[in-house]
């Protein structure tokens, strides 16, 4: 079992060599730096190859390194198991790092514990919020409803049957926000549109990881006349995208540009409702360097700070009319200045 993974890892290493981008550490710091800030990233067990949260958080760290004015150097440690989380953070602390970025809610408890024990070091965690965090810990959260709203506009405008579907993961805040935004965005674009949608029931075992169920639900929605489906729920959502590929319908991805991260769905992907994770991480690192660390332990990424958005249309770019693109850009502006609401409250 492990041996197979080993051979796989060997192949992967060879592949990275061939394509010439060894995933080496990035060390920046121009000549004008009086101090180099060391930033460490600790992934969850999904590791850097997840093409999603971990990969994008690392990109954010690298972007900060590339900005020579910040004088940041960075390293990453990929966690092999949950008991590694605290240990890996401790390794950075032992090396006198200035800031540690952790990825995802699986590290929520451990990040809090380590941050409390090391008040002089800054911590940022992607996609997690605390009620009363210590001053050195910031949660990076996103307005998923705004990203969903923008994607909803595109779906609403592009639907020929005036019916769109959505297959969602568990009914938890980020997923709920995506759904509300998406449906209201579609109605904003086309007041007569019919929206279908279903949350995954909290049966437990396969939350966010039941592509078969997602596929079934999406297929059922196509049967009811939907011609676009939004898959927002990890692998469950990916199942919905696959259904769209097979049924020759359109689909909308979630969290990251799934055209890049989930190429199986390229054929149907109109766009993806995106959280700009890399941007959020870079912003937080900048806060650390420039001494503008937020006092309330929270950074919210939304339309005002380009923290959310939609992905390029890729294959469908020529088919999306200019007025739709204008409408999206306009809505983004209005969401930012507050004249447009997504309808999500609380």
């Amino acid at each position, binding site marked *: 079992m492990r041996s197979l993974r080993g051979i796989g890892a060997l192949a992967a*290493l*060879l592949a990275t060599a061939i394509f010439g981008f060894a995933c080496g550490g990035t060390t920046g710091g121009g000549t004008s730096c009086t101090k180099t800030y060391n930033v460490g990233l600790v992934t969850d067990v999904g590791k850097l190859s997840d093409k999603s949260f971990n990969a994008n958080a690392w990109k954010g760290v690298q972007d900060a390194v590339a900005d020579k004015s910040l004088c940041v150097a960075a390293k990453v440690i990929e966690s*092999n*198991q949950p*008991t590694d989380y605290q240990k890996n953070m401790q390794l950075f602390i032992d090396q006198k790092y200035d800031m540690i970025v952790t990825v995802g809610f699986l590290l929520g*408890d451990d990040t809090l514990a380590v941050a409390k024990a090391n008040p002089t070091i800054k911590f940022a965690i992607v996609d997690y919020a605390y009620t009363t965090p210590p001053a050195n810990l910031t949660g990076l959260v996103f307005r998923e409803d705004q990203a969903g709203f923008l994607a909803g506009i595109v779906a609403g405008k592009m639907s020929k049957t005036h019916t769109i579907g959505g297959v969602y993961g568990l009914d938890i805040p980020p997923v709920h926000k995506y759904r509300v935004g998406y449906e209201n965005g579609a109605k904003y674009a086309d007041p007569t549109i019919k929206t279908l949608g279903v949350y995954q029931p909290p049966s437990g075992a396969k939350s966010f990881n039941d592509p078969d169920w997602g596929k079934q639900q999406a297929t059922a929605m196509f049967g009811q006349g939907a011609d676009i489906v939004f898959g927002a729920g990890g692998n469950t959502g990916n199942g919905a995208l696959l259904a769209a590929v097979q049924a020759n319908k359109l689909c909308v991805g979630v969290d990251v540009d799934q055209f890049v991260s989930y190429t199986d769905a390229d054929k149907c992907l109109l766009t993806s409702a995106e959280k700009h994770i890399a941007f959020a991480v870079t912003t937080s690192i900048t806060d650390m360097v420039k001494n503008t660390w937020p006092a309330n332990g929270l950074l919210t990424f939304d339309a005002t700070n380009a923290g959310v958005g939609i992905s390029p249309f890729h294959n469908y770019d020529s088919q999306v009319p200019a007025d739709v693109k204008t409408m999206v850009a306009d809505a983004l502006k209005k969401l930012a200045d507050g004249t447009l609401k997504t309808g999500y409250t609380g």
Partner: protein
Amino acid sequence: MSRALRQRLFAAVFIPVISVACGFVVAGVAVVITGSDPLAAFTALFQGAFTNPRAFPETLVAMTPYVFLGLAVALGFRAGLFNIGAEGQFYLGAIFGVLAGNSLPGTPGIIHIPLALAFGMLGGFIWAAVPGLLKARFGAHEVITTIMLNYVAFQLTDFLINKGPMSDPHSTAPRTPFIDPGAQLPILLSGSRLHLGLILAVIAVPIVWFLLERTTIGFRIRTVGFSQGAARAAGISVAWTLVLTMGISGALAGLAGADEILGVSHYMPASFSVGYGFDSIAVALLARSNPWAILPSAFLFGAMRNGAAFMQLQTQVSSDLISIVQAIVIMFVAAPVMVRWIFRLREVPVGGLQITQRETTGVSSET
């Protein structure tokens, strides 16, 4: 030194050492290809495993489950059983350990800890005895059934801790609540995570050795492993021995799971283990199913697992590199003929080696 002893020593020491060396050479080549410095990587691996502050105790922490799990897999090998389900039994041991650790709050540790560990063993025992029974009664191959039960164990865990009956209602992450402080294993070295489990693991080695080499049950296990026909002719109940061996093997794996919960994490997180049970097959192979040899073998794997993070920090070589080492080690240990061929060595007939070879091919036609 007699010729026979020299030959045994050769098989027990030389082949594993050569295998590990080859593993590092191949991994080193992979590092070179990716444009990094293998010497720097392996130096950092060594520092991360031994010389850094906190490193050595952490290596022992990582080694502890490998000892229990290595013993579990080795015990199966000796009866001719390929228990590939150690990972699932590890999970079940953890689930049962958390259950016991969460109940009876306020119970003194002297009672609570043994109880929780015993519960973990029970969980692993049940999970492994089922494939044992299926094999003994219906001839269902344990490789298939234990692999399948791994998935059942993973999904069961997901169900239980992801908003299921065992999840912590106060946590957004899928995990169980923390166990009762009384059930936590005492820390051996303050300021580290090194816990009593290491001592338990070290004690388990002579116990398993004694069980195998000095008891009737052990004799039956070995006889069944050597030849089921001969065992049957000698009046040994093959079916019963298979079930019992699987059960004990599972109990050891379950003990590892409970020990990990009570000693390190104190709750059961999502993706509790990523491959400990599978790595342990390599641990047992490298030790050639000898209980004493499990200790150095588990130590090596613990050191690699622990040092990998610092290696990545220093050189940014992915911590997955150690799985390349492990894979090559398995290849060489499982194919000693290849080692002999490469190093132009003569064939040395050794009993234990043959057993290992036969078991890795998973052949047992007589059930």
